[in-house]
């Protein structure tokens, strides 16, 4: 029945191996290699096993593993963001929270409705939901892995102490999630930041490069957001159409098992066909999801991180200009000149440091982005072709003559005499 189609939960496996490189173009570096070797999903949390291979002297061993949870990843990310030294770098975006709620709900509903459907239907739907759950699981593992790899690949961030602790310390980091007060603080901080961002962005930049980047990023970010949302919706409706095929297949199967006349054999064959259709469509939608939606989502986050970088730079520029003005005022009044001078120098240094690294970071961002899009688009096209050719053409077309096709277009697809002869042979056998 399978006829060469990889089935069930493994349908992500081929893409999975290369998942870490999907959204970012990373050089694998012998000095520090990080990956997530295992993951365990418990009731409401996921435990990731972070595995490190390193030849750096900072670590006690060359190879080791620790268990981490999502909150600890977030802690690491936040520590980067809050670190002033890293203001000039694009901080790799934090991985999204693992969200199994939807899947779990569906599984629950399935369990409740078990009595109302036939056994075949139930097992089919259960398989389907399990595959979905597994897919989400794999995705979240991949996202976390990408984050770690990005940090490991960054020449400055990889040396961060927190990062090393994260990798090595095999006790619980006792990082608790932010409580309500802290979340509220965060919210206000964000508001202030965005208001500030508006003010700061009003300042025209002397440097053309950054000016251009700013306008570009702003527009790009918005459009990526839009594209990502629409792509999501598209893959979701694709998936629900695929699910419908499942139900149709089971109904046809029920029709087919009513009695053993010709038409019932026909129905059974058609129900088989719908099953296969569903599998293919499900895979197509999963691939689209992976290559297109995930790509767009990731670059949504990255472009936000790039925007943040620009904001920090503008902020430091404003600070520098303010320090300049303060210095002028101090010189005019001849009061606290030294203080003003030092603060002005500090601001100047900070600004220049940020500008320099930001330029490089933004150029890298572009290279990475182009490479990632290229890779994903190529893979998307190849996968779509694979499904269309291998999946459909292989089993759909021979199945049609088996169902007694009316070759009203004998010269079209079925120009294949062999196909026709098969058809006739089956016909004679059937009747």
């Amino acid at each position, binding site marked *: 029945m399978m006829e060469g189609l990889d089935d069930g939960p493994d349908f992500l496996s081929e893409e999975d191996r290369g998942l870490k490189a999907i959204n970012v173009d990373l050089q694998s570096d012998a000095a520090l290699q990080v990956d997530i070797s295992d993951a365990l999903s418990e009731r409401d949390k996921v435990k990731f096993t972070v595995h490190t291979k390193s030849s750096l002297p900072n670590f006690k061993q060359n190879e080791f593993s620790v268990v981490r949870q999502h909150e600890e990843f977030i802690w690491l990310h936040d520590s980067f963001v809050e670190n002033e030294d890293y203001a000039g770098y694009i901080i790799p975006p934090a991985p999204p929270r693992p969200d199994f709620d939807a899947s779990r709900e569906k599984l629950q509903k399935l369990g409740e409705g078990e009595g109302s459907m036939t056994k075949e239907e139930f097992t089919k739907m259960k398989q389907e939901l399990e595959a979905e759950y597994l897919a989400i699981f794999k995705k979240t593992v991949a996202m976390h892995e990408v984050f770690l790899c990005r940090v490991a690949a960054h020449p400055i961030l990889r040396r961060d102490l927190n990062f090393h602790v994260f990798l090595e310390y095999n006790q619980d980091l006792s990082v608790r999630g932010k409580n309500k007060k802290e979340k509220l603080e965060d919210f206000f901080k964000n508001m202030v930041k965005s208001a500030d961002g508006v003010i700061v962005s009003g300042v025209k930049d002397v440097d053309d490069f950054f000016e251009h980047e700013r306008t*570009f990023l702003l527009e*790009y970010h918005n*459009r990526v957001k*839009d*594209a990502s949302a*629409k*792509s999501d*919706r*598209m893959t*979701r*409706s*694709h998936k*629900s*159409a695929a699910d*419908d*095929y499942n*139900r*149709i297949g089971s*109904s046809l199967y*029920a*029709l087919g098992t009513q*009695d053993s*006349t*010709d*038409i019932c054999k*026909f*129905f059974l064959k058609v129900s088989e*066909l719908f099953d296969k*259709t569903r599998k293919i469509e499900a895979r197509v939608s999963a691939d689209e999801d992976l290559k297109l939606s995930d790509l767009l989502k990731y670059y949504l986050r990255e472009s936000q991180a790039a925007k943040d970088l620009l904001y920090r730079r503008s902020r430091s520029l404003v600070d520098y200009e303010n320090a300049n003005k303060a210095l002028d005022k101090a010189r005019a009044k001849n009061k606290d000149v030294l203080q003003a001078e030092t603060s002005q120098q500090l601001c100047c240094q900070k600004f220049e440091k940020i500008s320099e690294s930001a330029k490089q970071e933004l150029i890298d961002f572009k290279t990475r*982005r*182009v490479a990632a*899009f*290229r890779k994903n*688009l*190529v893979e998307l*096209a190849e996968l*779509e*072709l694979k499904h*269309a050719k291998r999946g*459909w*053409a292989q089993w*759909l*077309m021979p*199945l*049609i003559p088996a*169902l*007694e*096709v*009316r*070759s009203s277009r*004998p*010269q079209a*697809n079925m*120009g294949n005499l062999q196909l*026709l*002869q098969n058809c*006739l042979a089956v*016909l*004679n056998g059937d*009747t």
Partner: protein
Amino acid sequence: MAAEREPPPLGDGKPTDFEDLEDGEDLFTSTVSTLESSPSSPEPASLPAEDISANSNGPKPTEVVLDDDREDLFAEATEEVSLDSPEREPILSSEPSPAVTPVTPTTLIAPRIESKSMSAPVIFDRSREEIEEEANGDIFDIEIGVSDPEKVGDGMNAYMAYRVTTKTSLSMFSKSEFSVKRRFSDFLGLHSKLASKYLHVGYIVPPAPEKSIVGMTKVKVGKEDSSSTEFVEKRRAALERYLQRTVKHPTLLQDPDLRQFLESSELPRAVNTQALSGAGILRMANKAADAVNKMTIKMNESDAWFEEKQQQFENLDQQLRKLHVSVEALVCHRKELSANTAAFAKSAAMLGNSEDHTALSRALSQLAEVEEKIDQLHQEHAFADFYMFSELLSDYIRLIAAVKGVFDHRMKCWQKWEDAQITLLKKREAEAKMMVANKPDKIQQAKNEIREWEAKVQQGERDFEQISKTIRKEVGRFEKERVKDFKTVIIKYLESLVQTQQQLIKYWEAFLPEAKAIA
């Protein structure tokens, strides 16, 4: 005899024709035997056709083979013809006739003699329905089309007029091709007339499409949007299918009302079909009464066949309803998918515009184009899903309701018979009492009544048997039709699936080099 008939579009030989011909013409008789047993006598007429089928790779034995219980020559003929080329050679080469020349399909049709004799291989190009009809031994040659919906009138009194075109070579029609304009209520009127005449004797009268107040109001009001055009198209297709089913029924075809409907240019307005008319309300009352009756009649089913069939139809009804629901969901989702794909395409195009890396920008716009084309594909797919599959299912759900109605009539018939028997018994008892009480005039009256009721009992029995027989035949016919219909539609649907996939392949193949070209 057959010579008088103009050769119908694609050759029209039928078993009946053969019977006619066989009397006078040995040539054709031996043609028949040639098909059954390979080399017997030189058959120049038959061979070119066989040769043709050897050349054309598209034999269509499918339609004919569908009917198992036809022992007539077509089944065998087709099987002979459907053999692979190598096997066909012996038939041809063993023929001593030197007049065998490969004839192209066109010449097959033109010369009358060939078209008459060689109906079997000519099946290839003919429509399914015609084959079925002639295979059944009926003289069927009628094609109905419903087209050109036109809005007539204005405001709430407006209605859509459809052109009903009939192409036929049957003798009972005065012309061979004619068309009339009909409106929806005319169709309903036709159905109610046929139903009143035939339903209660056991014929399965195909049900007419349903009224839709919402849809029609939109059309009347003049909203020229896609949903109202869709509605009109849906209705037109449903009316066409309805008429085609009706004329396929051999008994209904003979009905003068049907002929009047198809032929006469003016038809009396069927007001009884309006929902709120007196007749409409009467209908609803009748339906309610029937429902109550059904629950109270307890029939002694002497014939297990009927019980089995009724159960089968119940099951079938349920399954089809479930399937219909799923298919409608699929249609809905596909429409959604199409809309979402279009939205994504636009969004991707915008993204491509804002991207400053030229190659990537170009690739993204290409992606947008591909997605747009795919959206078109999805729309067509939805169209296919809907019109073929879903409508077929709803047609059959209504048909099964008609079948159940026929079974119910049988029950009512039985009830009548039973009642007659009971009354007869009572009358006999009354007569016996009269005999005892010795009232001569009353006795005479009683005897008259007894005779009357005896006749009624006999009539009731005959009716019941008649309806049972008719139902059996009808159900057999219905099942055959069902098989055919489902197979055709599903196969058409699959073929459209294949086409969609091939288009998809083309689009993605065009996109791939663009994606690879991103530097």
